[in-house]
């Protein structure tokens, strides 16, 4: 097995207060990993750290599969300016940024890949539509099409199916399954236990401290879930400096 990501005694947080506390472990190449846990457990923070958007308070993330900027990352609340005059085709093409850069043209082949990506998320026919006219589900489909073009070995998804209907969720899960089939590493923050059990072979249960990590069926056992719920303590303003060592 090859390792895609390794966490060494990783502590993440804001203003010195930890949101993820002393996490150790590895994500293997080709893993389809669900990160779950109660609100405030540090799931989104973990993805941000993997993407390189925040620096750890302690420990480190080792990215062995690729550089931080080659990781495809879909944040929870994409801050898209939907009033911007740009159409679906052009927005999806942004996925080629790493290979096209400032001036690189869109070759015939690449253009065909944009249409393919748009087709595989079921948006064919909407290429010329301004992005402001899309529904919430269509917007998420469009962002998945852009992820497809990024052609990244590691893909991070932060609550990608929140507020989507079951049809859209099923279609996008198919895209995720395709990535898994292509041996890409996918790490997704999810809340829906049923989806995790059905589609994600591995899971990490996080409650600020790591609770369990491994085969999904075992991780999502009743005992672990109960422990996770208890472990997210209240924010402590008087917290002392943590003296735990690796």
């Amino acid at each position, binding site marked *: 097995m090859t390792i895609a990501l390794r966490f060494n005694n990783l502590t993440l947080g804001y203003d010195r207060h930890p949101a993820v506390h002393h996490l150790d472990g590895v994500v293997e190449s080709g893993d389809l990993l669900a990160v779950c846990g109660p609100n405030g457990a540090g799931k989104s923070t973990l993805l941000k750290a993997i993407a390189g958007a925040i620096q750890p308070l302690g420990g480190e993330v080792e990215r062995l599969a690729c550089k931080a900027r080659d*990781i495809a990352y879909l944040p929870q609340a994409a801050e898209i300016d939907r009033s911007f005059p*740009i159409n679906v085709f052009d927005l999806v093409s942004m996925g080629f940024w*790493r290979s096209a850069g400032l001036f690189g043209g869109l070759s015939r082949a690449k253009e065909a890949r944009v249409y393919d990506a748009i087709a595989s998320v079921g948006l064919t026919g909407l290429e010329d539509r301004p992005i402001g006219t899309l529904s919430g589900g269509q917007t998420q489909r469009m962002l998945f099409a852009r992820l497809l073009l990024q052609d990244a070995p590691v893909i991070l998804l932060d609550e990608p199916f929140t507020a989507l209907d079951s049809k859209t969720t099923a279609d996008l899960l198919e895209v995720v399954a395709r990535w898994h089939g292509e041996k890409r590493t996918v790490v997704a923050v999810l809340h829906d236990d049923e989806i995790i059990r059905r589609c994600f072979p591995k899971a990490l249960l996080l409650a600020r401290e790591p609770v369990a990590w491994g085969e999904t069926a075992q991780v999502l056992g009743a005992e672990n879930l109960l422990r996770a719920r208890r472990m997210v303590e209240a924010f402590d303003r008087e917290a002392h400096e943590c003296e735990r060592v690796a």
Partner: protein
Amino acid sequence: MNASGWPDLMSALYDLLFAPFADFEFMRRALVGAMALALAGAPVGVFLILRRMSLTGDAMAHAILPGAAIGYLIAGLSLGAMTAGGMIAGFVVAIASGAVARATALREDASLAAFYLISLALGVTIVSLKGSNVDLMHVLFGNVLALDDATLLLLAAIASLTLLGLAALYRPLVMETVDPLFLASVSRAGAPAQLIFLGIVVMNLVAGFHALGTLMAVGLMMLPAAAARFWSADISAMVAISAGFGLASTYLGLTLSYHSGAPSGPAVILMAGAIYLVSMVLGRAGGLIRLLRPRHHLEA
């Protein structure tokens, strides 16, 4: 119409539309200079509008005044000194207000307002203490009818640099505006693109201030761009339309000013304003008529 009517009409049209520029060199110079401004100002204005920085342009225009004034103090009505002074003042205000916004609780718009107001008051004070009223008028309203070779070259150089710079920055600027998180996740280009863009804005305001004065310089940037938004929902089309509107305003404004005796800088901006108002009513993309009398909805 009788047979002799045609030549009369043609010569009247010629007198109206072409004679001012054919007969007078200063009108041709004014036209060329203002067109260079309009051409470069168009894409800058479009990005200012899409990035919700319309008023930033206005604030920066006021901020360059003391720099130009200090240049004037040192070297009189010198092109080089006033240009350098204006650029320096513009960059100082842009960077200082950005730094204050990041380091303190004050938001960027408030800190920019604070800096440009101080800057403007300082500028007017310096000019009026040391110069005559004529000089003050020149700085505040420019003098598009007295563009010499050096100034024309400066305007052309700045316009060329602007177009080249924006061509290079086009993708990161668009991405930074639509989806800043995405750009940050794939590239480090966001912050430098933003800074260079601000530099381009300052450069164009300084160019505009020689021809139109500090108060009018923003007009040729913002009005055509705002008008273009009423005609297209596509950014590249907006840039082209906005350039067209800018060029038309300079020609119409100068012609109007020649025949009516109205001051030329304000006449150009008024024409741009007229185009904006007409677009607001007639525009296909969100104009008033479309809003009030929407077409019937489609089947699917």
